[in-house]
């Protein structure tokens, strides 16, 4: 039996059997997936097999543990709602009349039609356009047309399916179907201080996700994006066009530090546990005004800088730095990527098709010029950087179609002397091109796929 036959033949069973031909330690009980996820490599079918994808959408994306759903600024008032997805489940994230957060399946309890077809808005209840069933924004069935047609109808049994747990960490709203999942705080764990840094850059922690996101798509598996997000190895190569363009006017700025043997520089990668990781680029900068000084010029830079310096004097460096990205890339498993000033959400569509939604952010407590500059800086990478990565993801997906070449490697940094250093809290810091972030997140992937969370 080939691996693919084995996967498709077992995908519907709850306990996964191990492909016959690859069992490493015969005679002993082998953990499911252990032949496809090894210390230094993963099997290509994790990126190509529709049965694996179906199981991921259930388990990795909500069935076992937390998934990012929305930012509270997208739900600004009581009875706000936002359409989103948790894996392949259509979800409405809502606020009730008191402002508390909920998430319900946007799927009629009657015959499955999408109940609400708006992207966002304000509504106390939703009426399904198909047969007129009406649900409160917390999921309870309010009423059905002509109820005399039902014998012994128990309305309480026909509410919208609800996301079992919905919690917010400082505006970032997560959900899971698993009542026994760890607390959101425990799940975020060592990612929390990094998320705090990102939020606290905004005066008063006031971050606003803007309407009008980039919905970028590529023909490849969702994990290609997650593999990339914590990867300090690729920029010198995948982003050569951006780095070359940046040198058009002489002195090269911005991401150019990735080109100079980055493992010897001040950048570090941290593997934070539970699938999370972060690349810290701040070591390339020095003191207030340094982010701004090293930013490649964007539209309006000169005029707005002159105005801000004139008006705010000694405070201008701090304000101008806030127009520039955070200089961290924080990946929160499985679908939240904090990049620069943006909130990027990984939305798997099919085994070989993915949407990456890039939400730009403004912040409170700064003059409007800072937010306008912030828009211009947030346009740069999605235009001249991300598309080249996505082209490479698509070419990787093409390469993964070859059955005889089975493995995707993540062994860079493995057993290299002097790279990884574990702190007392378990966080491992390592060289920025180490593929430890992949090895780290596959541990969480396995826990979810094995229902061991």
């Amino acid at each position, binding site marked *: 039996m080939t691996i693919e036959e084995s996967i498709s033949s077992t995908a519907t069973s709850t306990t996964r059997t191990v492909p016959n031909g690859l069992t490493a330690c015969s005679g002993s009980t082998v953990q499911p997936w252990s032949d496809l996820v090894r210390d230094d490599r993963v099997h290509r079918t994790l990126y190509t097999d529709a049965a694996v994808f179906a199981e991921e959408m259930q388990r990795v994306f909500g069935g076992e543990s937390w998934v990012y759903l929305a930012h509270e600024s997208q739900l600004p008032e009581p009875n706000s709602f936002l359409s989103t997805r948790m894996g392949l489940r259509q979800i409405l994230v809502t606020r009730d009349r008191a402002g508390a957060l909920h998430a319900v399946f946007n799927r009629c309890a009657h015959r499955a039609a999408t109940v609400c077809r708006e992207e966002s808005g304000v509504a106390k209840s939703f009426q399904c356009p198909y047969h007129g069933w009406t649900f409160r924004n917390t999921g309870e069935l309010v009423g059905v047309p002509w109820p005399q047609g039902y014998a012994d109808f128990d309305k309480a049994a026909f509410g919208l399916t609800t996301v079992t747990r919905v919690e917010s960490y400082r505006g970032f709203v997560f959900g899971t179907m698993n009542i026994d999942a760890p607390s959101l705080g425990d799940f975020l764990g060592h990612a929390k201080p990094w998320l705090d840094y990102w939020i606290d850059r905004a005066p008063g922690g006031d971050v606003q996700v*803007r*309407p*009008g*996101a*980039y*919905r*970028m*798509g*590529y*023909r490849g598996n969702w994990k290609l994006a997650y593999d990339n997000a914590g990867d300090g190895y690729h920029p010198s190569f*995948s982003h*050569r*066009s*951006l780095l*070359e*363009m940046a040198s*058009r*006017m002489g002195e090269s700025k911005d991401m150019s530090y990735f080109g100079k043997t980055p493992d010897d520089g001040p950048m570090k990668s941290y593997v934070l546990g539970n699938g999370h990781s972060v690349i810290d680029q701040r070591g390339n900068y020095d003191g207030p005004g340094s982010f701004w000084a090293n930013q490649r*010029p*964007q*539209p*309006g*830079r*000169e*005029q*707005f800088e*002159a*105005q801000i310096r004139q008006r705010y004097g000694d405070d201008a460096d701090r304000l101008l730095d806030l127009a520039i990205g955070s200089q961290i890339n924080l990946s929160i498993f499985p679908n939240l990527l904090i990049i620069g000033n943006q909130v990027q959400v990984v939305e798997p569509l099919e085994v070989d098709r993915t*949407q990456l939604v890039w939400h*730009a952010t*403004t912040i409170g407590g700064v003059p*409007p010029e800072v*937010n*306008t500059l912030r*828009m*211009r800086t*947030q*346009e740069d990478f*999605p*235009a*001249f950087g991300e*598309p*080249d990565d*996505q*082209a*490479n993801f*698509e*070419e990787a997906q093409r390469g993964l179609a070859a059955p005889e070449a089975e493995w995707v490697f993540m062994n860079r940094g493995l057993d290299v002397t002097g790279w990884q250093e574990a702190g007392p809290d378990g966080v491992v810091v390592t060289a920025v091109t180490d593929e430890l972030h992949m090895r780290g997140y596959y541990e969480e992937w396995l826990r979810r796929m094995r229902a061991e969370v």
Partner: protein
Amino acid sequence: MKLGDLPARYADTTSWSFHVDQAYYDDLDRFRSIFAEDWDAADPGEWHRVQNFLSREARLIDEGRFNDWLDLFAGDCLYWVPVNAGGGDPRVEVSHAFDDHRRLTDRVYWLRTGLAYSQLPASRTRRVIGNVETITEPGGLRLVRSNFVLNEFRNGVAKTYSGWYGHVLRDTEDGLRIRLKMVNLLDSEQYHENLTLVF
């Protein structure tokens, strides 16, 4: 700030964008509101002239002559592909492209590095432009509204884009030059794969 008022140091707008100030954003609001109005039929001579200009601009892009295309833009130009078709407020929203002269020069440079993997192989495009309307605004600028259908083939995948263009043109000694090219995709805020082609 008007180009003629720029300090000498900032006069080269392929390197500096001192002129992009609040008034620059205010101009966009003004252009957008004129684009939203009903216009009287144009004089046939003017209509023919802008039609020729749009056809020529389209051909330069479709033939990959990006340096020649860049030459059609004024120093205070904007090549703008908003995420919200028709505009939105660029002061607090991002755009697919919000290219002043410097960033547009960067974009052409980027396309021509030969290292932009999203354009290796390059997009092949052909577009048809129709429903052309034009008026002159009181300040002397010429506004043009048109519809487009754009076919792209790249790396085994054929796609169709459609929408409307809003052009603001300035008459100069060298002929018409683009002050604003606004590209309003029918589905600008929706899922798109690889928007690195030139619209």
